Structures are given as C-alpha cells and as structure tokens.
C-alpha cells in the first residue's frame, strides 16, 4: 500500500504503524542538531554559498544562516504538529518532505556516507541507522510522487 495518495485538495496519509513511528523520531533527531564543527552532520547542513571566497562565504552565512535555521525549524514543527493527521495540506506535505530530507542527510553524515553506491555496502552492515535511512527514503519518494502530480 502506498503511504500517501492525492485526495482532492489534500494528501491522504496511509502510513503503516512502523512508518509513523519512524516519522515520530524525525523531529527528535533534528532538534538535537548541534553546532559542533566536528559533527559531520553539522558540517553537511551548514550553508556555504561561496566556495572560493571566504569573505563572501562569511557574508552569505551571516545573511542566510538565521533564515535557514528558522525555515528548517518551521518544517520540523509542522511535521510534529501534523504527524497524527490523516489528511495533509500540500504545503504541510512539503514541510514533511524537507524535514525527512534533512533527517536523511543528518543520519547519512553521521554514518560517514560520502560517495554514491553506499546502498550495497549498507545492506551488509545491517545497521539500524541504515534501516531508518531506507524507510525515510521510501517515505520521501512516495511524497515526491504525489506532490509531483500537483505541479
């Protein structure tokens, strides 16, 4: 069964219990984001706009870091507030999409995933985090499918 379906002006949420349980962990995972430069997840999610110009990169960071944090926090809050709903507004579904994506980036960074083709190696590792990464990927892909029908 598909976890999401378009239903008129809304998106019907048809999550299995295990899928909803994984989503409940997303806001908790993201809320614990640390500002530690030694944390690979922090480094991956930090916005660097200019690669070759440190001054411009600092200016861009000063300009956008607060806005980015606020926007990501807004996504996370909407996910948490609507997590038990059976119907989503498309705008809320996009908040889910981004929050799930941010969680995947964070888990992957902490697993040290830096190259394409990690999926094959990950199967052998059988880590819980890999299972979470795969489930979140399935849910994000399903949301992309229904939201793409609305473009």
């Amino acid at each position: 069964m598909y976890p999401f379906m378009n239903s008129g002006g809304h998106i019907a949420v048809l999550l299995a219990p295990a899928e909803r349980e994984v989503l409940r962990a997303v806001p908790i995972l993201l809320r614990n984001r640390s500002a530690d430069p030694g944390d690979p997840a922090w480094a991956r999610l930090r916005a660097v706009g200019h690669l070759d110009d440190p001054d411009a990169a600092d200016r861009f960071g000063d300009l956008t870091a607060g806005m980015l944090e606020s926007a990501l926090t807004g996504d996370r809050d909407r996910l948490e507030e609507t997590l038990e709903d059976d119907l989503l507004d498309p705008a809320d579904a996009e908040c889910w999409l981004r929050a799930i994506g941010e969680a995947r980036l964070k888990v992957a960074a902490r697993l040290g995933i830096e190259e394409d083709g990690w999926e094959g190696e990950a199967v052998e590792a059988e880590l819980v985090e890999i299972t979470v990464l795969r489930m979140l990927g399935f849910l994000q892909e399903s949301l992309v499918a229904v939201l793409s029908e609305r473009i």
Partner: protein
Amino acid sequence: MAAVIPGRDVTIAPDRIDRPEVRETFEVDRGWQVVVWNDPVNLMSYVVFVFRRLFGHSLEEATRLMLAVHHEGRAVVAHGPLEKAEADCHRLHHHGLWATLERL
C-alpha cells in the same frame, strides 16, 4: 584654440589641462550562476521535484539537470544578479541540496 578679446590686441593662451594620470577601469558584472553539486544521499526523484518546484522547469529539463549533477558532479541550475542568485542558493539549501555561487 586661442581666444581674442575684441578691442584689445591681446591673445590669451588657453590653460593647459593635464590628462589625469589615473585611468579608471570598470569591470562589468555579468552576474552569477547557481551550481548544484552531487551528493550521495538526496534521491534523484527529490532533486527533480526541487528543480521543478523552485525554478519552474519542465520534467524533461529538471531530469536533464539532475542527471548532469549525478554524472558530471555538478550543474548550473539558475543565474542572475547576486541578490537573486543568493536567494536561489538559500532556497536550495532549505531543500537540503548542496548549492554554491560562481561569478559568470
């Protein structure tokens, strides 16, 4: 050219004006481009969706750009003045894509 004052037999030499030694050059700002880089985590379908949603690309164009990112490591997805390019870059960061700016 010299000037002659009527009624007087006097000729006034023009002032000599030195050419300014400083030559100003102006660099034309041709704008900026927004580059999206490959990463191993974001789903291909999600990247296509983001390109369509943010930039209004067709499915075909968004897919072409996503494949360029995937196979070539990067693709230019937008361009314009610095303010617009930085706004686009910020929106891509909000969607979790690795984006940077380059001067054209």
